[in-house]
């Protein structure tokens, strides 16, 4: 096909992000491997950041650079953020999409985009 739909379009665009954000955030908050990092944050602001993250991972429009990722997570790296925590987030993301009935081939693409930010997030 010459005019293939983008990943973001296949997932359902902004409506899909809106459907996923509460589910994903609940998973993160109940995940004991990572919820310590989310204890003392403003939930409203955090939900907006989760939405921005999902938009990016869904292949949607965003202007995040590797530097933004580094700066945004530097304080967490100082608190011990490591590969196991990134693994947990990607797992929660996959579980969210499965719950929403997204097919595995698309979930793999989303996971790959999230994976591509790993080194920047961890400041390497």
């Amino acid at each position, binding site marked *: 096909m010459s005019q293939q739909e983008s990943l973001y379009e296949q997932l359902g665009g*902004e409506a899909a*992000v*809106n459907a996923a*954000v*509460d589910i994903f*955030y*609940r998973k993160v*908050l*109940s995940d004991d491997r990572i919820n310590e990092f989310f204890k003392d944050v403003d*939930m*409203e*602001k955090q*939900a*907006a*950041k989760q*939405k*921005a993250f999902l*938009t*990016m991972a869904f292949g*949607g*429009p*965003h*202007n*995040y650079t590797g530097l*933004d990722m580094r700066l*945004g997570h530097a304080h967490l790296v100082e608190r011990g953020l490591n590969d196991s925590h990134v693994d947990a987030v990607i797992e929660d993301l996959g579980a969210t999409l499965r719950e929403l009935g997204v097919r595995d081939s698309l979930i793999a693409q989303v996971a790959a985009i999230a994976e591509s930010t790993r080194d920047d997030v961890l400041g390497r």
Partner: protein
Amino acid sequence: MTTIRYAKNDFELELNQSVLECLTDHGVPVPFSCQSGACQTCIMRATAGIPPETSQQGLKDSLKLQNYFLACVCYPTTDLEVALPNDNVQTAFPASVLSLKLLNADIMQVVLECHAPIDYRAGQFINLFQHQTLGRSYSLASVPHEDDHLHLHVRRLPQGQVSGWIHEELRPGQTVEIRGPGGDCFYIPGNSDQGLILIGTGSGLAPLYGIIRDALSQGHSGPIHLFHGSRDLNGLYLTGELRDLVEQYSNFNYVPCISGDDVPHGFASGRADDVAFQQIPNLKNWRLFLCGHPDMVKTAKMKAFMAGASMKDIYADAFNVSQSS
């Protein structure tokens, strides 16, 4: 040519330029991150003019109604005067004290008559000033169109400068300075069969009392549950008025909660938030209003979200006690 006014400076918006780009190009320190209208870091408020709808996508309804917008995706075609959320743009105006009445041992109802009409929503707060540099935020318990004047419930704090002054020195007939209104914890008409849960501790009842009466007067038809909590019976107030409302409206339910040991018949035992979440464990599709003690608000917000409430349906106002009380 569209003009963006910030802190009394006028900036011309260039073609295809966002408000964020325009302001940051001129050295205004607007924080930003995603630049695509998602992360809400660059949220601003139009203090004059109406921001385009597309710049308000994803914002909570109560913020939209107050003309908040995301600067990075804001491309206005008419002039805007804008402010950052923490800029102090509230104007001061005088009000006369009409009456002072104790609602219980610690909480004073202050009724104020503004010298000029004030446009507010039930549940918002105003700042009341003892003198020019010493003011505190108090929630409004009154409802526009229902009540002629502004009603505040001021709890006397142990070392509270302003609350002490209100309780001991303020007299009817005096003129005070107020600023406001502010806050985004209020009832928004629409979705009138949605269930509402309101949880408050202490004088956190003030905004809730306004919100409930506002919702009822606007014809809200879904169930409305109020859980008001205190350590003991003496901390509860307006119980008679609230029971009258229960008589009057079949969809309104009032649950006074006592967290201490001595719980008389007709009162629920436990903290207001615990009682609420026990009685209504699944909060999917409910709208919540949480007001009062900051720890209660924080815990209840988390619990409500985990119990299925959507973040956009949780309205909260934490009564933070000023460090220099």
